[in-house]
């Protein structure tokens, strides 16, 4: 579990864990004592029993300890630069999971619903293509590592219309995009970030 040790940023946290999570508990923790939150949007990802093959009995999620946490924290920082968010909680499970199990929770709070919806969408699209997690699916007919989907790549690209992606660099470029700005969540001042916000770049379906 990585929590930025700063009371102001307690509302922005990331956990990588084997154990399950409880959406209601997480939302209570995120909103408790806060009068400035007007909207909370949550996304929960679950294990399907079909994917690349129709008979998935379980999957194993691997991550890169340290880097995974940092990459999620950076995504939160990027999301806060785009949207006036007042709280984010990301939980991603690792290890062996079975159909119906929770995999990931992205909980986004804001004063108003638009930013919360867009922030949650932005975070999930980026988590899918930029956070170092890997799924291995177990089926009756064997185990295999899940391949990335082009639809996830396209979902990511709609947030970055300015970046031209060559066919050759396709797999690499959105990931390599370095976050040169201060990536410490602790130092992201909410007010400054919010006042510097342009209109969300999100423009609906591409």
């Amino acid at each position, binding site marked *: 579990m990585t929590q930025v040790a700063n009371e102001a940023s307690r509302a922005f946290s990331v956990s990588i864990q084997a154990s399950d999570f409880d959406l209601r508990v997480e939302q209570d923790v995120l909103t408790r004592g806060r009068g400035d939150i007007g909207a909370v949007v949550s996304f929960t990802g679950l294990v399907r029993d079909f994917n690349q093959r129709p008979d998935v009995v379980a999957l194993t999620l691997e991550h890169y*300890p340290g880097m995974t946490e940092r990459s999620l924290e950076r995504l939160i920082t990027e999301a806060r630069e785009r949207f006036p968010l007042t709280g984010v909680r990301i939980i991603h499970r690792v290890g062996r999971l079975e159909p119906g199990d929770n995999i990931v929770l992205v909980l986004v709070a804001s004063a108003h619903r638009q930013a919360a919806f867009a922030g949650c969408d932005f975070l999930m699209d980026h988590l899918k293509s930029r956070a170092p997690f*890997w799924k291995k699916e177990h089926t009756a007919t064997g185990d295999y590592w899940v391949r990335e989907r082009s639809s996830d790549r396209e979902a990511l690209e709609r947030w970055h219309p300015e970046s031209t992606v060559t066919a050759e660099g396709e797999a690499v470029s959105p990931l390599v995009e370095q976050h040169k700005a201060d990536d410490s969540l602790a130092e992201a001042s909410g007010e400054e970030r919010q006042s510097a916000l342009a209109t969300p770049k999100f423009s609906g379906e591409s």
Partner: protein
Amino acid sequence: MSLTHLNARGEAHMVDVADKQETRREARASARVSMLPATLALLAEGGLPKGDVLATARIAGIQAAKRTHELIPLCHALMLSKVTVDFTLDSAKSCVEIQVLCRLNGRTGVEMEALTAASVAALTLYDMCKAVDKGIVIGDIQLETKTGGKSGDWQRPEEAAAVEQTSVEPSRTEPSRTEPSPAATAEPIEATAGQAAPAARGDATVRVLFLAELRERLDLDSLALNLTTLSQATVGGLKRTLALRDPQLEALNDTRVLCAVNQDMVRDDHPLNAGDEVAFFPPVTGG
């Protein structure tokens, strides 16, 4: 089979070793300290409040080996000729593996010294890290091998090692029982072992990790490489050198294979420095 520390009346006694022949004796023991990934990352960066954790734990282990007879009631005081305590940081399993070697020419074995050193090194790791992670678990304190003496040589059976490799594939660590993987046989490349992270900082080595599908395809999870063996100290230079040493590592040149240095995504022109952690992995599929 009988217990040597009990006499005919079943009372504890110290075995008289005066008449035993001096032989060269060696014992290896290991322990595992499991912690949160964030704690392991702090440990690797040297960011813990009490300072250089591994150096302190190493000294603690060596001191403990020398004082084993004061702790374990019926142990003899020994003139140890060598004690080494090495650490391997295993990010896949989020733990530190401790490997101890004790050696002497003497009349009694050094297993207790090796086990005591591993235990105290593990306790010291806990003490140094507990400010940030009280849930650290110390486990798998065990003898790996012993040689010399009347009872002869002993090695931990292989199946015991296999049991612990069930979940997400772990690092190959213990140098004493690791079969060199194909990629690790080329001479300047060593499968990452006891000389891992802390030692690597002092000299010019980089640690290279292979994750997820790539690790399974290559049957290789990590290796250490001296920077001076690279034609160019960049990620691209590292890839070229690895591919020359082992043709299967040509796979790293696949444009889909991603690379992170010290946990930041980088391109092939990124420079490498001593102590860097380089990771190669396939496109990500989380969420």
